[in-house]
């Protein structure tokens, strides 16, 4: 039997460190806001506290105290709303939008991380309660490693191949290889695109991947990430150099076009490879019978 103080301390520390590590592990451009950091660390701390005191409450025994975990779930759903709202508001002033799919994905991830924190705190404080603090710390480490692995998720690089595509014009139509991107009217703009633009062909590995990159949300996420790292030459009321991703309707691959501030094809591909596959866009046709039948 352990001192409840030690049990709670280990639980809270585990949860807090877990949240901290996951926050640092966060992908690109968010949360770069220092206040966002603080908010999420505090929320993580509260979540850790909730998870940690559950075990002593059970051991006491004070079963009613467990019901506040239900309250906690409600509370952390608010985090999702908070993220969704603030990122949604920020969209209004963005030239290149993140897209609602991406925002929803980020919001869900933030909510889920708090549940992971509660679980990590619960498990480590439980282990401390039953076996003593050395085991508690061991469980804590396993929990943190597991949650890092769980939150990693699939990346674009896992589901598709990338290669440079040649930009050219067919009349006034801008093409990447054989995919039409858009109609460009001004000769000066055409010259600029040919001189500075980059084209990339994204080949999906299978039918799942093909439908995933088909989703406009996933394409917007790719464009947003590339632009947020390498910049773009689009300006307010000068949308002619808008980066775009268009698919080849028959062959299923995607053509990506951008005029970046840093026209470095290697970097663009590296960024796209690290774009998370959004769970709202992720297709799972191959796990359905009809999908598999249609695929062969």
């Amino acid at each position, binding site marked *: 039997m352990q001192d409840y103080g030690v049990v709670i301390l280990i639980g809270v520390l585990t949860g807090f460190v877990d949240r901290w590590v996951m926050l640092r592990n966060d992908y690109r451009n968010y949360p770069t806001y220092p206040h966002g950091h603080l908010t999420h660390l505090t929320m993580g701390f509260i979540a850790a506290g909730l998870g940690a005191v559950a075990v002593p409450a059970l051991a006491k025994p004070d079963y009613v105290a467990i019901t506040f975990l239900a309250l906690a779930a409600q509370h952390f759903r608010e985090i999702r709303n908070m993220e969704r709202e603030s990122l949604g508001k920020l969209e209004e002033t963005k030239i290149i939008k993140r897209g609602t799919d991406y925002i929803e994905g980020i919001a869900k991830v933030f909510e889920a991380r708090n549940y992971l924190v509660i679980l990590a705190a619960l498990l480590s404080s439980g282990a401390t309660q039953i076996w003593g603090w050395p085991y508690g710390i061991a469980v804590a480490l396993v929990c943190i490693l597991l949650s890092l692995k769980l939150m990693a998720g699939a990346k674009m690089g896992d589901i598709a191949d990338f290669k440079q595509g040649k930009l050219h014009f067919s009349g006034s139509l801008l093409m990447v290889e054989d995919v039409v991107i858009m109609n460009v009217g001004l000769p000066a703009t055409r010259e600029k695109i040919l001189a500075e633009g980059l084209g990339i062909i994204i080949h999906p590995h299978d039918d799942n991947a093909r439908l995933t990159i088909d989703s406009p949300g996933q394409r917007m996420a790719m464009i947003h990430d590339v632009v947020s790292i390498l910049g773009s030459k689009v300006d307010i009321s000068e*949308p002619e150099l808008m980066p775009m991703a268009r698919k080849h309707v028959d062959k299923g691959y995607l053509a990506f076009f951008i005029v970046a501030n840093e026209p470095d094809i290697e970097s663009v591909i590296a960024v796209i490879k690290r774009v998370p596959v959004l769970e709202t866009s992720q297709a799972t046709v191959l796990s359905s019978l009809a999908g598999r039948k249609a695929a062969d």
Partner: protein
Amino acid sequence: MDNNIDNDTIVAVVAMDEEKVSSGDSPVFLAKNAEEQERLCLLLSRIMGGVAHDLENGVYIIVKH
């Protein structure tokens, strides 16, 4: 902006040949030569925040996406 499915409007038409265009919702600007036409397109697209598109028959349209 990536999904220009809805709300695209033609804000202006720039042509050299009067016969290629007829009046509609959007104003039509006539240019004397290709140079003036290009300049008009550039100015209009910057002023209106639209994109100049080439219809490949000597008519350009400025579209707000």
